[in-house]
């Protein structure tokens, strides 16, 4: 029951007036970020990270994680009202949400989406509360080989589970590792891959990469589309909310299934986007009114929203307990931890109890606050979207530049950001996934350190990664994940030939 006491202590931390204020600011900023094209959870948090350098870490993470929840909520608004997914994970929400809005039921669709998001998040937070301390406790026994195996599993899951071609995923991921390796080698203290450029001594900062790849890249993609918003009106009144809430319990089975899908996809670093699609697809196949999906079925809003939010939230479980973020935004939060001087990973639960439990408690409160904020302020947020892109775009670009500059107070970084932006545009157009690239930049040094330390212990034999039951199991899981698509294909071919 020690956890329960810790959790209550965490609530006491999160309920301090200063932290509550940051929570509301974070949620509001997050929804705005989620609503605006070109500003997503990951780069929104990255831009605002420098603002938190002077805050106490607990307050900082509360604000930043609330931005993340806000962005998750915000994506749904644009999907339903404007048929424009503000975030990739809300693409599946447009399938039924937008038709509902066109049939004059936008309030119903929005209420369903926000409530489902809340349910998904709550489910994931409860899971984090119960499971994270156990995982962390278990992970305390990990040596370097086990640590590397966990990284290996995380990165292999990307290759196996992402919908992009596997070799493109590998290429993108390895580019991330290479960029992470640039600069001072942490073990030997030797310089590498700098080719005499002094600006590269400290290597590439992942925050710059995130702001460039996701922020600038997204703006360029939007420019190509030549954006024109034509949106419906948004109005939610209490009657519609209550009426929709009465309907929702009938879909408890869909919700539960979507929660489970979301948590699973969030913990393995597949992320919220595939989770929402998968949940939508399964709901469509299993629902009684599955044929009506795509024509404005409320179940088609519940399924992807629940899963996306559950995945987005549970992505913090491996970040907190293992130091392996489950999504790009979680990776940025993890980078924040390092900047605030905290060492992510299992020791966090031992040494920084107040921080961890304050964060977990703020997840409960933040999502509740988020639900209230979005339900009451939808018309305001929808109005933001009517500000034309010609005004929004330069402001976002300037914000990105400010964010990139303030990471290290360096104008070189701002130029680097633009390079990453153009690269992000090209990579995205050519179907290379960006998430593994960013995660590899964040985790590259740690993965390499674990790898080299394991090899040091074993005098260079790779056998160390299969030296005991635990590490072999994790490595084997990683290999299965790596070849997952090949295994699936082989299985379906086998079944074809049997039939």
């Amino acid at each position, binding site marked *: 029951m020690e956890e329960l006491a810790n959790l209550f202590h965490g609530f006491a931390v999160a309920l301090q007036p200063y932290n509550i204020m940051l929570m509301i600011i974070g949620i509001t900023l997050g929804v705005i970020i989620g609503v605006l094209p070109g500003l997503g959870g990951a780069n929104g948090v990255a831009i605002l990270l420098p*603002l938190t350098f002077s805050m106490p870490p607990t307050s900082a993470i509360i604000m930043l994680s609330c931005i993340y929840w806000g962005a998750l909520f915000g994506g749904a608004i644009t999907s339903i009202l404007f048929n424009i997914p503000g975030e990739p994970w809300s693409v599946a929400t447009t399938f039924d949400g937008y038709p509902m809005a066109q049939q004059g039921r936008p309030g119903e669709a929005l209420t369903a989406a926000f409530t489902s998001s809340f349910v998904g998040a709550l489910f994931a937070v409860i899971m984090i509360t119960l499971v994270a301390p156990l995982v962390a406790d278990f992970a305390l026994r990990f040596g370097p080989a086990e640590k590397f195996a966990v990284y290996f599993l995380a990165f292999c899951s990307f290759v196996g589970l992402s919908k992009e071609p596997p070799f493109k995923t590998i290429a993108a991921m390895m580019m991330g590792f290479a960029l992470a390796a640039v600069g001072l080698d942490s073990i030997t203290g030797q310089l590498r891959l700098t080719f005499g450029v002094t600006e590269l001594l400290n290597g590439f900062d992942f925050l710059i990469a995130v702001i460039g790849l996701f922020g600038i890249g997204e703006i360029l993609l939007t420019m190509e589309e030549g954006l024109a918003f034509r949106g419906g009106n948004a109005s939610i009144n209490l009657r519609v909310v209550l009426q929709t809430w009465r309907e929702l319990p009938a879909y408890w089975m869909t919700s539960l299934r979507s929660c489970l899908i979301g948590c699973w996809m969030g913990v393995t670093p597949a992320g919220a986007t595939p989770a929402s699609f998968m949940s939508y697809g399964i709901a469509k196949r299993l629902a009684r009114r599955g044929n009506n999906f795509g024509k404005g079925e409320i179940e088609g809003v519940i399924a992807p929203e629940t899963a996306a939010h559950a995945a987005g939230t549970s992505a913090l479980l491996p970040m907190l307990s293992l130091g392996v973020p489950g999504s790009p935004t979680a990776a940025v939060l993890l980078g924040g931890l390092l900047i605030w001087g905290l060492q992510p990973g299992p020791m966090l639960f031992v040494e920084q109890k107040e921080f961890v439990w304050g964060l977990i408690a703020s997840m409960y409160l933040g999502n509740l606050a988020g639900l209230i904020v979005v339900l009451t302020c939808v018309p305001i947020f929808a109005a933001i979207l009517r500000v034309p892109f010609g005004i929004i775009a330069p402001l976002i670009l300037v914000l990105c530049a400010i964010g990139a500059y303030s990471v290290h107070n360096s104008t070189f970084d701002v130029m680097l950001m633009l390079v990453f932006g153009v690269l992000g545009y090209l990579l995205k157009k050519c179907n290379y996934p960006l998430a593994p690239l960013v995660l590899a930049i964040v985790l590259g040094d740690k993965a390499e350190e674990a790898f080299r330390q394991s090899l040091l212990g074993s005098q260079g034999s790779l056998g160390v990664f299969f030296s005991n039951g635990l590490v072999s199991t994790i490595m084997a899981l990683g290999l299965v994940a790596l070849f997952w698509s090949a295994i699936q294909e082989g299985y379906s071919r086998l079944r074809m030939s049997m039939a």
Partner: protein
Amino acid sequence: MTERSGSESGPAHKTLEIGMALLIGAFGLVVIFGSLKAGINWGAEGPRAGFFPFYVGAAIVGASAINLWNAQRGDDGRLFAEWGQLRQVMSVVVPTGIYVGSMPFVGLYVASMVFIAWFMRWLGGYRWLTVAAVAVGMPVVTYLVFERWFLVPLPKGPLEEWLGL
């Protein structure tokens, strides 16, 4: 901003795919070269600095070779983008390049004002009054939030020095 050229011409998707695979492959070769310079064998303190990046570089080259093979094999005749669309993209990239390039000399605030004004006037076609309001308002708000409230210094140029900020 939504105008499109009527003709549907532009670079083929295949060309860009091949170019991308070659570019990433070349990056991999650079990584391998750099790792070799740092030393990829075992030293007194264990694996040397280039040990890990060397295999990373090799993986990049390997994956790019397969991506290259896949790219040149299939041709669905898809366009990467129309020329008109690419012009739109470039109309953002080039000014942004000038914007970030001028920042070390004139500071962030002046550069941002000019950039926002340019963008809104030429790409958005707004009235000068609107343009001026946003272009001046945004940097002022930025100054108050970043420098005054959160005490994060941003790059300044001659103008700010003259104003004594």
